[in-house]
C-alpha cells in the first residue's frame, strides 16, 4: 500500500475525528480556541456559532471546520485538504489545553461520495456487493419495479477486527447509495477507523489516545482510501 490513489475522483469528500470521553461542551466556544492558540483570529472572523450550551456546542469555521461537542463526544470534521490540519487542531486541543480530559475511544473517519457514471452501473455494483439471489424467492420482489422505482441494497457494512496496530478496535466500512450525486449514479462510502484504550489508560487523560492519533492519522487515511478504492474498482468489474 505504498501509494494509493482513489481511481475515481470523489465529488464530496470529508474527514472527521471523533473522540469519546468526559467533556464539558459549554467551554467549546470559538473564542476559547483563539485564547488557547488553537485557532487564529482570522479563523474566528469566519466562525459561525450554532449553539453553545451545557450539553452541546456546535460551530463552524469558514468552509474548513465543523465542531460538535456533547458531554461524551467531540467531533471535528473538515472537507478541505490538507486533512492534517484537522489532526493538528485536535492534537493541540487535547495535548495542550485539555490534556487531563479522559478520552478512551477515537474514530478517524473518511467519507466520500463518488459517481460511477450511471444508475445501471450503480445497480450492478449493489448486486455485486449484496447478491439478491441470497434472498431466494424474495429476490424477484426486491427487483420488481413500480413507478420507475425498485428495491435493492440500502446499506452494507463490513468490519475488520483483530488488527495488529491496536489493542482494541476495528475498521468498519459502510457502503450506501449516495443521496448527493444526481441521476442515481453515486455511491457513498464511509470508513470508521476505531480505536479504544482501557479505562486505566484513560485515567492518564487525553495523552494516550492523542499519541495514537499522532501515529495513526496518515496511515489511517491512506488505508481508508485504499479500502474505498476497492469499491471504486468494482466499476471496472461489473
Amino acid at each position, binding site marked *: 500500500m505504498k501509494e494509493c490513489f482513489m481511481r475515481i475522483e470523489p465529488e464530496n469528500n470529508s474527514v472527521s475525528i471523533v473522540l469519546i470521553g468526559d467533556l464539558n461542551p459549554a467551554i467549546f466556544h470559538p473564542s476559547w480556541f483563539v485564547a488557547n*492558540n488553537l485557532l487564529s483570529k482570522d479563523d474566528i472572523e469566519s466562525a459561525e456559532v450554532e449553539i453553545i450550551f451545557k450539553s452541546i456546542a456546535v460551530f463552524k469555521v469558514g468552509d474548513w471546520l465543523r465542531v460538535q461537542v456533547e458531554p461524551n463526544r467531540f467531533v471535528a470534521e473538515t472537507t478541505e485538504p490538507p486533512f492534517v490540519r484537522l489532526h493538528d487542531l485536535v*492534537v493541540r486541543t487535547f495535548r495542550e489545553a485539555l490534556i487531563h480530559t479522559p478520552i478512551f475511544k477515537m474514530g478517524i473517519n473518511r467519507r466520500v461520495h463518488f459517481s460511477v457514471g450511471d444508475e445501471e452501473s450503480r445497480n450492478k455494483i449493489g448486486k455485486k456487493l449484496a447478491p439478491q439471489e441470497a434472498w431466494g424467492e424474495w429476490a424477484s420482489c426486491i427487483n420488481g419495479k413500480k413507478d420507475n422505482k425498485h428495491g435493492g441494497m440500502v446499506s452494507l457494512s463490513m468490519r475488520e477486527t483483530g488488527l495488529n496496530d491496536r489493542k482494541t478496535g476495528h475498521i468498519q466500512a459502510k457502503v450506501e447509495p449516495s443521496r448527493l450525486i444526481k441521476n442515481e449514479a453515486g455511491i457513498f462510502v464511509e470508513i470508521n477507523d476505531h480505536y479504544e484504550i482501557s479505562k486505566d489508560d484513560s485515567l492518564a487523560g487525553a495523552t494516550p489516545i492523542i499519541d495514537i492519533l*499522532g501515529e495513526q492519522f*496518515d496511515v489511517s487515511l491512506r488505508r481508508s482510501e485504499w479500502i474505498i478504492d476497492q469499491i471504486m474498482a468494482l466499476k471496472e468489474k461489473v
Partner: protein
Amino acid sequence: MGKPTECRMTKLSPPNSDQIELTLFGPGYGECVAVHLGENRWIVVDSCLNTKTGNPAVLDYFNEIGISPQKAVKLIIISHWHDDHVRGLSEIVSSCPKASVCCSSALTQSEFLSHVLNYQNIMTKTTSSGVKEIEKILQILSDPSLPPIKRALANRTVLDLPAKGTANSCVVTTLSPSDKEYDDFLKGIAALVPSDKKTKIRAPSLSPNDAAVAIWIKTGGVKMLLGSDLEEKGESSSGWSAIVQSEERPRGRASIFKIPHHGSGTGHHDKVWSDMMIESPIAILSPFYNAGKMLPTDKDIARILSLAPKSYITTRYPAPKSKKSRTRSVERTIRETVGKMRAVQPPMGWVSLRNGGKSNPDSWTVKLSAAGSHLNALNEKKG
C-alpha cells in the same frame, strides 16, 4: 608521488589486506568516508544515504565488496551533526556493535541533549532532521554493553591499532574541536532553546560548523587529512587556524585531503595546504546543494585545482530538475506556482583511492563511480 591511475568502475572488489583505501560517498543527503587501514580493519566517518536504495551508502558498499561490518569496522566518527552528515548513521552504529563511536564531546553534554529532546518530537513523520538521527544513535549507545563513546577533542588519539599481518600500525587523531569551539557550540545551542507557546518547527542548524571534527590518519608512511565541515573564522583559537598553529598536532604532511565543507571558501586556510599537505596532494570532495546553489563554486574549483591538480569530486552532475512524473494537471499547477522543481540531490557517486600496498604505498589508483569525475570536468561542463 606520481600521477594516480584513474579508472571508472562499475564492479567493485575489496582492497588487498595491505592496501590502504579511502572512499568518499556523496551527495545523497550527506557524505560519508570509509577508510581501510589494512587487514580488513575499517573506520567510517559520517553517513549518507544511497539515493537509489535508501540504505546507508557505506553499508551497500560493504555488502558489494563482501565485508562484514560487524567485524570489520573498528571506529565510527560522527564528524558533526548536520543533516548532510548523519542520515542513516544510526543504522551503521547498529550494524557495527563492536565499533567505538567517536563524536565531539559537546554532543554528549546536557545542553545538546536538551536541544535534541526539544526538537526530536515535533509530530511530523515526513520531516526528518539530523537531530532525530543523533537521538537514535545516542539511545543505541546508552546500552552499557557497547564500547564507551570516545570524545573528539583537539589532538586526541581516538584509535591506536598495532601492526597486524601485512598491515602497518595506525593512529587516528581528532584535531578539533578546540576548547573555544566547544564553548561556542554550547552557547549557540543555548540560543536555540525554544520559547513557551512557540509552534514547533524543524531543528535549525548552527553555522558555522562548531563541533566539527577534523581527523588525521597515519598508517605506515601514509597520512590523510579528513576536513569534515570545519570552517575557518579567522580566530587563532578556533577553526583551521587553531589546528595549523597547534604545537601538539601530529607532525608530517598528508598526501590525501578530504576537502572541508564541500570545497567552500569558508573551509579554506592557506596554511593547511602549505604546512600540513605535501605539494599537489590528491584531494577529494563531494558537492553540496542548497536552495539551487552548489558548493564548490567556480571560484572554489579554481582555487582547489591550483593547489591540487589531482582533485576528484563524487558527482559531476548539478542538481537536476525533478524527474518525478505526475499528471498534466499537477505539472501545470506546479509550473504556475513555482516554475520548476529541483531534485534535492543528484544521484550519489563515489571516489575511491587505493594505494599499491606495502610495496608501493605512494602509488595511488583512483576509482570513480559513473557520476564521479576529476574536478576539472565541472569547469568543462560549464564551458
